[in-house]
């Protein structure tokens, strides 16, 4: 016979008391383990959701990149076709004009009669839409102490056999000047400001925005005034032919042939805008693609942020509830265990009296009650862990369900429950056990 046998016999005898104590410990452990497991499941689920979302976003971005690449090509092609269909620009120059001078220096020194423009306008040429005669010279503007390109233009010359169209370029009225970006920024020019050029006064009609080419150092004035200023009366350096159309593959050659028939002694070259238009088309397509991709990435990032926020909020809410509820349940269960232990001591007063009388020491009496509490704690820990873990797995909703057990099982938590629950139970039963150990056997035996 020993104390533990006595404890086991008493448990078997007072099953209800034992069961109620066991239930209390199990509820306390289950609430702790359940909450911990559920929070762990939340964390795993959050990681999974965010990982899935990131994969979706990455896949969507990759698909979008492919889509954008494809669409970009289509757009670029479409833009190229559109710009091709819109026409291109030509420059009609004197036959003896050295093109090196034009391309290297940007100037034209050779001239041709100004009446060439009228001749071309009055012809029946169908491949040219707009005509712009001009004189140009690299020029040192001494009043501003700046080298510029001076261009004289009379605006568009209407073609006699065509209906009047909206001109592509306005005429520069006499006495006025349009100045390029570098000129007006360097000299702080303002619109309607009066400037002097070679002793002549002009009013600044327009300030051109930055173009990034020769136009930034160009000043445009009226053609007649430029001819007079440069000593080229009734002469022009070239004629710009804009929005030229041609159905054939070698369109410049066709137009060149038409122009040569009307204006012998001239040469026709293609000007830059078509290449520029294609480059702009490519840039536009690229920009559109990048914007679309950026929108997709931003939407993905926003979705991830939203998921993160929602999951974090859910986890925080559950943590807050658990932080309040679990300690309350544990404290309530501990009080209940203590109450049950006290009832047990009261029920066993006579037993304590005789055990003391036959020689059991106070520590043995305490062991009888604390031993029972520890047993209740141990068994309650296992039962409570199983219940709490089962609840956590079920409520955690991890998929696939058969793997959830192994993913959520935490040996440390089981060890903690098995260690802490007996301790909790023993602490809760401590005062009743001390009271039992202090029972005076003489008082008990006399009372009986």
């Amino acid at each position: 016979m020993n104390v533990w046998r006595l404890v086991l016999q008493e448990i078997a005898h007072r099953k209800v008391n034992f069961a109620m104590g066991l239930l209390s410990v199990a509820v306390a452990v289950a609430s702790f383990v359940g909450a911990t497991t559920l929070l762990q499941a939340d964390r795993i689920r959050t990681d999974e959701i965010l990982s899935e979302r990131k994969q979706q976003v990455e896949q969507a971005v990759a698909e979008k990149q492919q889509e954008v690449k494809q669409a970009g090509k289509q757009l670029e092609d479409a833009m190229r076709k559109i710009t091709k269909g819109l026409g291109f620009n030509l420059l009609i120059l004197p036959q003896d004009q050295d093109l090196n001078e034009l391309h290297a220096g940007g100037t034209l020194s050779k001239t041709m009669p100004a009446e060439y423009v009228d001749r071309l306008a009055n012809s029946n040429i169908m491949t040219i839409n707009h005509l712009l005669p001009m004189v140009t010279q690299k020029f040192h503007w001494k009043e501003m102490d700046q080298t510029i390109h001076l261009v004289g233009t009379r605006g568009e010359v209407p073609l006699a056999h065509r209906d009047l169209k909206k001109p592509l370029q306005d005429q520069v009225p006499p006495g006025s000047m349009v100045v390029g970006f570098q000129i007006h920024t360097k000299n702080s020019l303002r619109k309607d400001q009066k400037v002097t050029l070679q002793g002549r006064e002009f009013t600044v009609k327009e300030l051109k925005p930055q173009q990034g080419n020769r136009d930034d150092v160009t000043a445009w004035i009226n053609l007649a005034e430029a001819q007079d200023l440069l000593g080229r009366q009734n002469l022009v350096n070239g004629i710009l032919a804009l929005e030229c159309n041609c159905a054939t593959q070698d369109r410049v050659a066709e137009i060149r042939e038409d122009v040569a028939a009307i204006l012998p002694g001239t040469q026709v070259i293609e000007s830059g805008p078509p290449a520029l238009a294609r480059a702009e088309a490519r840039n536009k397509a690229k920009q559109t693609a990048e914007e679309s991709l950026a929108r997709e990435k931003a939407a993905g990032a926003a979705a991830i942020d939203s998921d993160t926020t929602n999951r974090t909020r859910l986890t925080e809410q559950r943590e807050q509830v658990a932080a309040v509820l679990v300690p309350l349940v544990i404290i309530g269960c501990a009080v209940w265990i203590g109450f049950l232990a006290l009832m047990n001591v009261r029920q066993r007063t006579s037993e304590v009296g005789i055990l003391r009388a036959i020689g059991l020491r106070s520590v043995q009496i305490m062991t009888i009650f604390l031993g029972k509490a520890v047993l209740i704690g141990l068994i309650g820990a296992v039962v409570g862990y199983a219940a709490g873990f089962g609840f956590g797995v079920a409520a955690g909703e991890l998929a696939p369900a058969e793997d959830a057990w192994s993913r959520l099982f935490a040996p440390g938590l089981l060890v903690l429950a098995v260690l802490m629950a007996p301790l909790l139970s023993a602490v809760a039963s401590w005062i009743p056990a001390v009271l039992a150990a202090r029972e005076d056997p003489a008082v008990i035996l006399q009372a009986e």
Partner: protein
Amino acid sequence: MLLNLQSLTKTYHTANGEVHALADVSLSVDDGKFQAVQGPSGCGKTTLLLIAGGLLTPDGGQVLVDGKNPYALSPDERAGFRAANIGFVFQQFHLVPYLNVLDNVLAPAMASHLPDAHDRARELIAHFGMQDRIHHVPGQLSTGERQRTALARALLNRPKILLADEPTGNLDHDHADSVLGYLREFASDGGAVLLVTHDSRAVEYAQSVTNIEHGQLVPA
């Protein structure tokens, strides 16, 4: 002299005033002697027995059990001293309700190491004719069987002194005779028995009988 009580006094302080349970009581019991103390209820019999058993500290006087004063020991040492030297039998039996006869008899073994406790328990159970009830719990026993179980428990540790408080109070005539016979047998085997009772039949079994009235011993 196994039990020597000298000039014991004990007063209870109750709401109704002081109760002098023992007033200058002296008594001794030698080994091999069956001493009975007779008296009506409330005369101080149980107080005398509890003091003699080291369970209730007297207000005055001295208790010597086998030459040692148990009240000079700490409570836990005194518990060990009781386990080694004294056996108790009570009117209410005080058996542990959820232990069977064997485990009840073995209960004192929790207090002191007895290498042959199991054999000794079975031997006592057989001696008291309880073999067929060995696995029964007290609720399944008759009052006579319960008291015999209590007697067996009291004798497990081979005590030098047996203290019996009204052991026949709840028994019928035959069972009472049987219990008194066992007490006499213990004394004849060399032990000392102090029986407190109001049962007049104790005179037939005890070697010496003393009356107690109002906390004082008077010749029978």
